[in-house]
């Protein structure tokens, strides 16, 4: 399966529904397997910065093939790899939880990023959206 605009719209719709149930105002971003934005919606009155934060989370989850919260482990000074977050090699990398890779089996086909609530709430929204859309697969 390849990421396309129809899947992206479905995931966004499910995420926004979940956010409404939780009474949160969110932005939801979907990127493809290269980290390129496919669709992004910002709910009415959601704060402006959530747009870019959601996009950053989706980019991170998709390109690293792991939840954006896992990127934090590279910031542990006692492990190899420490310092890559100071390399200034891009401005999309984020360690804030709320970005999840979208998977078709083992293959990562994209990423979803949510911003608007607390990091835990954002992850809940992501999980709920992916569970709704990919439940049948």
């Amino acid at each position, binding site marked *: 399966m390849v990421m396309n605009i129809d899947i*992206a719209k479905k995931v966004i719709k499910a995420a926004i529904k979940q956010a409404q149930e939780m009474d949160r105002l969110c932005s939801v971003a979907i990127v493809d397997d*290269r980290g*390129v*934005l496919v669709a*992004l919606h910002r*709910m009415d009155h959601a704060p402006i910065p959530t747009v870019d934060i959601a996009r950053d989370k989706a980019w991170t989850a998709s390109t690293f093939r792991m939840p954006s919260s896992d990127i934090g482990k590279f910031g542990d000074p006692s492990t190899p790899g420490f310092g890559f977050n100071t390399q200034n090699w891009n401005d999309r990398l984020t360690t804030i939880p709320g970005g999840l890779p979208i998977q078709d089996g083992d293959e990562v086909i994209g990423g979803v990023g949510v911003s608007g609530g607390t990091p835990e709430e954002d992850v809940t929204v992501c999980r709920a959206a992916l569970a709704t859309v990919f439940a049948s697969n």
Partner: protein
Amino acid sequence: MKEITLEMAEKMLEAAERWAELSGFPSSIAVVDKAGAVIAIHRMDGAGPMTTDISINKAFTAVYSGAPTLMLARAIDPRMMGKTLGSGGLGLLTQAKLRLMFIPGGNPLRDEEMGVIGGIGCSGIPDGVGEISDTTAVQAGYAALYDEYD
């Protein structure tokens, strides 16, 4: 109508996408609010990675300048130098943290009092190839807004 809602933005995207489809060139279309912040963006299947940020920046530029990006393209057109606008147009290039876009395809959205309430931008349809351009697609989005909510 004072504010663009997500629902309105989706209606506009739908209309603009229909025209992009007609042109045969997949494109990205973005709707922004009066602050120039993205409300919704869709990148159609097959549209290049570059089109996402260009469409956002076109919509942003339309809001920021209050004019279609077609006008800004004219402002920095080398053929205009020393005539009506002079070389002052080049001063625009470095504004807004280099986010200003001087390519046609971004239009501001206005309310009844002609205040700017948002912008719409499209990127992906080459100019002058067919009868439909980026500007046509955003005008279709604009029209959908006013059909629905006037």
